[in-house]
């Protein structure tokens, strides 16, 4: 666990996370009857189910991708057994306007809770505010919104990338050339991870030079091509940072082809199952892993609490941060990740 590296306030956040998270979990795990007392005027889910009232919850993802898919699975795990809840996954098509429109639709449908993976922190803020006015709590995933809302469940990108930089530098012996396989601008994750990585290098390994920062469109194939080219110019490349695992795995493909496995340090981001396997196989050096299922479960648990009306959405002036513990997974510690935690 690299949480200790985070500034103090983050540690506090983290503790808070664990508490609220587990509380929610116990709540979710059938202990719903307590929430009835809290419920005040509103219905508890169990009672609602008895009366045949149904709660609607939906998750607006960024675009079809492994991470949101895993979240959705985690969310469903918690929501499905509570038979009074209808849950659906909606696709933001990587377009802000689509996400906003979906938000409004959900509010209009009187959803009890909206899970949201915002493409941009600011762009979605107005519609989150709208939702709040309509009394619909919003739980954001991974990307926070500038408008305070019910809860934010995140695997921090900025500090994660910093830690990756630190680990990568260590693996490279503090010096050498690094290439970044980047995503095209336009989504905030990209900026957070890039900046985190660069700041991390500055802070921990000032001697390491970034010789190439090229766009590979989140895409494994593009990553292969781009890295091929970069290697032609920098045959002595020491490390590669793929802003997501797909691109990192693309780098791995190239390294295997050119027999550079072990010679080049390759880090990814996200920690999807393919990446973990690659790490175990000793190809990918490491990635920022978090249990995305768990992240989904946490969000869902919090959601169920909110849905029962224990806390009115409008009351969330001071929003809660559920900070996911993350792990810079490398060959050493990757074994500690249970199969059930792999997504």
């Amino acid at each position, binding site marked *: 666990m690299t949480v200790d590296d985070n500034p103090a306030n983050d540690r506090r956040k983290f503790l808070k996370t664990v508490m609220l998270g587990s509380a929610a979990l116990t709540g979710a795990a059938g202990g719903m009857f307590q929430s009835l007392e809290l419920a005040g005027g509103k219905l508890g889910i169990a009672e609602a189910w008895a009366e045949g009232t149904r709660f609607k919850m939906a998750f607006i993802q960024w675009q079809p991708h492994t991470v949101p898919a895993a979240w959705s699975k985690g969310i469903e795990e918690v929501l499905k057994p509570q038979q009074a809840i209808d849950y*659906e996954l*909606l*696709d933001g*098509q*990587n*377009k*802000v*306007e689509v996400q*906003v*429109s*979906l938000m*409004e*639709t959900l*509010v*209009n*449908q*009187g959803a009890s809770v909206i899970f949201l993976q915002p*493409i*941009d*922190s*600011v*762009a*979605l*803020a*107005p519609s989150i505010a709208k939702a709040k006015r309509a009394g619909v709590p919003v739980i954001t995933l991974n990307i926070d919104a*500038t408008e305070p809302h019910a809860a934010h469940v995140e695997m921090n990108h900025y500090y994660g990338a910093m830690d990756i930089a630190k680990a990568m530098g260590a693996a490279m012996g503090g010096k050498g050339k690094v290439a970044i396989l980047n995503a*095209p*601008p*336009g*989504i*905030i994750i990209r*900026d957070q991870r890039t*900046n985190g990585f660069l700041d991390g290098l500055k802070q921990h390994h000032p001697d390491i030079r970034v010789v190439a920062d090229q766009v590979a469109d989140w895409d494994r194939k593009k990553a292969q091509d781009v890295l091929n080219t970069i290697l032609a110019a920098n045959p002595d490349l020491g490390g590669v940072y793929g802003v997501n695992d797909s691109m990192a795995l693309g780098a791995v493909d190239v390294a295997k082809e050119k027999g550079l496995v072990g010679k080049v340090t390759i880090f990814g981001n996200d920690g999807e199952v393919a990446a973990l396997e690659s790490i175990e196989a000793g190809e990918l050096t490491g990635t920022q892993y978090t249990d995305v299922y768990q992240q989904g479960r946490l969000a869902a648990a919090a959601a169920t609490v909110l849905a029962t009306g224990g806390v009115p959405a409008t009351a969330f002036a001071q929003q809660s941060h559920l900070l996911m513990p993350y792990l810079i997974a490398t060959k050493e510690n990757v074994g500690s990740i249970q199969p059930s935690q792999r997504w």
Partner: protein
Amino acid sequence: MAQNAVIFRPATIALILFFVATVAFFCVSAPRFATAANMENLLSGYSFVAILAMGQAFPILVRGIDLSIGAVVGFVGMVVFDLTLIFHVPGYMILPLALLVGTLAGVVNGALIVFLKLQPFIATLATLAAYRGLTYSISGRQLRPDLTTTAITDPWIVGIETYFDIGSWLGISKLLPMPWLPLSFVIMLALFAVLQTLVMTTRFGRDLYTVGGNYEAARLAGINAARVIICAYAIAGFCAAVTALIMVARFTTSTEALGTGMELTAIAAAVIGGMSLAGGIGSPFGPAVGAFLLGAVLLGLTLLGVGQFVQQIITGAILLAAVGYDRMLVLRRQRRLTANPADAV
């Protein structure tokens, strides 16, 4: 009047009927479709699409196409972003500037097509890349990461995203809840009025149809076809700029990816609205309706709980139906025509 010849073509009437039918269908079948909130959602969520589509109508009218308008939206959006957050330029100055930038982008497209004799498809395909690149290069988000979490607050910009409670003004809302009218919709209506007038009742409008319908005739009638074409693309650019402003106001920020892929939506709306890619047929009216039709369908299907992947399939089907119907009308007319194929239209 003469414009009837153009605006009330059977295709247009069919479009209106189809639109009404669709809305009616969802009002009945889709829960919460016929609510004030949903209508508000439709109006505010698709007015800017409609504006973009109306702009696209002009290049199509002169037998062209503009693939770059999505990128123009992104570029203008980023210009606004920089001017407000970095240079703190007052909004009342930004608005005209933004419109100017968009229009110029359009002019460049037109110039490439007219003077370098490039196919519109390719010319705008190239500028699509170039404008997106420009957007990246001027992106304040890359220069000043802190700004990515700073909302635009300039009243002149954000003010575009306001709503009018028409209902209570008219006192109707006591009887039934009325949707609040988004300013963007009002802008759309105003722009529609202007463009439709331009097309129907000005010399320039007539010239558009002449150039699109019979380029040689236009030339021989002494029409400056080059200027007409450039103007057409300029209008497309202008509309893209308006779209950008509305979106920025709606999101209180802009991203480098703003407007990506919207050109295809606009083209789809235009074609559904009865614009013929052969040029010289249709008017801004069609694309506007087409846009809201698309919007109504998407919202309706979402409310029906139809998966979004299925929605993509349905959208495609509607597109096919639209062109198919237009084709049918053409054939029918050709059969009616007693002229020889040489000048059948």
